[in-house]
């Protein structure tokens, strides 16, 4: 594995000076630390991917099929016909450059091919050559070029140096969604067996066992029971969650990282405690045991196949609606694809909170609601007893996940929840949050270990904004609503802003949640001692809870 660069060296290596050569003539370098390992034959075979074999991106020979150019160009033709958005986005870019400096990978690498406009040109130039009259006639003069091995390696490098975060699209005057180009690019590369193992492995696990990690049913149950033990130690309350229970009102689906990874497990404990306190009639599933979907980073078809189990399980169990955990890309899929892929789920009802009676009309089509909306609604109706002073040892800021903010507009709910459970909340600068949020730097399946330098570079803009509130306000906790964030921001913070930990929002909810019959809490969910009462200001918890609904404490 490539060695992690020193912080100072990394910062000094970033130069925004363009190379002397024209971009088409600047060769692509596949550098250690900047790419992920190639997909393994074993993982590819599980889901029937073409050209399954072991291969190494760093080697010259990628073991491609003989007619790979033909496959790729035909694949592009098919997608241009199928996805009108793709053809439109390839046609209308005027290369104004508004997107150029908006990409976290460009900011962190200084590599012009990470400007979204140039990343788009990688495909656009090939599109021109084979599908436009001007490109066919005038070639390079018209910005067109042949698809050759050099171009293919360039595609692979830069379509796996984009996290599909869509920050660039916010600034594009035409609204071009460059994630769509990366998505199509990866789909085409997959026709040649050019996926990365960090995506292909989870995809095959998910297909075989229901989740990315490959957790067996007994492992899921055992992990949750372990958390239940910890909750009992903390609160004195024994929780009895159910699994695969027919007739439950609600099916709960969350990313499997919450069932395994640190700090995701604390978020999971938060869900368990909240649901217990509400007496919610819900069940876990060991079959639909993954909210995330790395199939989406492979192809539309693969995403659809993996997503199908959620509705299938809801139907089998006979639940009324589905509640989903804190995840990012999961929600882009639920919000924008699930209904047309695998719906309509007309056997389900429109989600309705059994506690407040609120009907989540925004989920009328999908029948699936994000837990942050569910919890914000509980708080709005005063259904939770909260003691935010139990989070007084934390100074919190909120990182908007790309997909929940830009993909579905969940901007207010997480902030509303956080301000109800924390008394110290500070926003990062406004051009780095909400719909302008910076990516964690490792989304869309790039959160492997071998590409750590790429991740740290891509994570720099977000980390820089965290550092600002860390220095100014002493922020020591970065809250979020995404499992990839929980995993990747932890690494990014350890490197760029030591002293800032990362937590799912429901961990902080559970810290503050006063449960019926609980014993006096000595620690927070992580076992850290709670602040002593004399360290707290003399404000009643209730008064703060009411105040928290008001203005942002920026």
């Amino acid at each position: 594995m490539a060695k992690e660069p020193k912080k100072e060296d990394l910062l000094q290596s970033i130069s925004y000076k363009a190379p002397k050569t024209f971009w088409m003539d600047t060769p692509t370098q596949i550098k250690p630390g900047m790419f992920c390992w190639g997909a393994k034959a074993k993982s590819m075979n599980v889901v029937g991917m073409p050209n399954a074999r072991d291969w190494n991106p760093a080697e010259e020979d990628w073991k491609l099929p003989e007619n790979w150019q033909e496959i790729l160009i035909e694949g592009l033709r098919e997608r241009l016909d199928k996805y009108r958005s793709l053809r439109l986005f390839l046609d209308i870019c005027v290369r104004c450059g508004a997107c150029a400096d908006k990409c976290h990978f460009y900011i962190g690498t200084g590599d012009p091919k990470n400007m979204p406009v140039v990343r788009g040109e990688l495909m656009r130039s090939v599109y021109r050559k084979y599908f436009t009259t001007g490109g066919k006639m005038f070639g390079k003069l018209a910005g067109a070029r042949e698809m050759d091995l050099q171009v293919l390696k360039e595609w692979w490098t830069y379509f796996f140096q984009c996290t599909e975060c869509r920050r660039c699209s916010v600034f594009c005057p035409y609204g071009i969604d460059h994630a769509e180009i990366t998505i199509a690019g990866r789909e085409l590369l997959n026709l040649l067996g050019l996926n990365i193992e960090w995506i292909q492995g989870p995809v095959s696990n998910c297909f075989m066992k229901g989740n990315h990690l490959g957790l067996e049913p007994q492992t899921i149950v055992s992990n949750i029971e372990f958390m239940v033990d910890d909750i009992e130690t903390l609160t004195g309350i024994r929780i009895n969650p159910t699994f695969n229970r027919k007739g439950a009102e609600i099916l709960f689906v969350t990313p499997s990282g919450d069932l395994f990874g640190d700090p995701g497990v604390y978020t999971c404990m938060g869900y368990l405690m909240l649901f217990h306190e509400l007496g919610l009639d819900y069940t876990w599933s060991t079959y639909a045991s993954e909210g995330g979907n790395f199939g989406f980073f492979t192809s539309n078809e693969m995403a659809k196949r993996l997503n199908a189990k959620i509705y299938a399980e809801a139907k089998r169990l006979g639940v009324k609606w589905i509640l989903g955990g804190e995840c990012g890309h999961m929600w882009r899929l639920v919000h924008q694809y699930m209904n047309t892929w695998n719906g309509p789920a007309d056997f389900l009802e429109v989600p309705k909170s059994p506690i407040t009676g609120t009907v989540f009309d925004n989920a009328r089509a999908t029948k699936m609601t994000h837990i942050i909306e569910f919890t914000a609604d509980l708080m709005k109706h005063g259904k939770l007893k909260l003691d935010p002073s139990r989070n007084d040892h934390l100074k919190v800021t909120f990182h908007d996940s790309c997909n929940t903010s830009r993909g579905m507009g969940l901007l207010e709910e997480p902030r509303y929840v956080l301000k109800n459970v924390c008394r110290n909340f500070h926003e990062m600068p406004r051009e780095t949050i909400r719909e302008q949020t910076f990516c964690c730097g490792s989304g869309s399946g790039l959160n492997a270990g071998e590409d750590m330098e790429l991740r740290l570079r891509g994570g720099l803009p977000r980390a820089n904004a965290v550092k600002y509130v860390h220095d100014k306000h002493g922020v020591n906790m970065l809250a979020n609503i995404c499992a990839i964030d929980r995993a990747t921001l932890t690494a990014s913070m350890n490197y760029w802003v030591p002293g800032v930990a990362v937590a799912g929002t429901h961990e902080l909810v559970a810290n503050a949640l006063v449960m019926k019959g609980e014993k006096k809490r000595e620690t927070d969910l992580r076992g850290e001692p709670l602040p002593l009462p004399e360290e707290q200001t003399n404000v009643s918890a209730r008064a703060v809870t009411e105040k928290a609904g008001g203005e942002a404490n920026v």
Partner: protein
Amino acid sequence: MPTIEFQGKQIELDEDGYLLNLGDWTPELANHLAERDGMTLTEAHWEVINFLRDYYAKYQIAPMIKILVKEIAKSMGPEKGNTKYLYQLYPAGPAKQACLYAGLPKPTGCV
């Protein structure tokens, strides 16, 4: 894919040095893999490796770190039941390094 020769047998590893075929694992191979990193496995290291292997046999995945910590506290005493102790044993991280010597695959996904 890289391979190493050990006791007259070709052992296949992945790019990060994990065993490709879990059936290749032997205690001797674990010692050998550690030596390649300049480490000598002591009884304390083996306590972790043995637990990891038993756990894997039952659950088909490495345990989450909280479970490992608790288990070590049980067998080695509460003063050793913390991640600090595990990092002392395995400086590159118990999840990565101990799993590698124990012949377990590394977990993938949102972790």
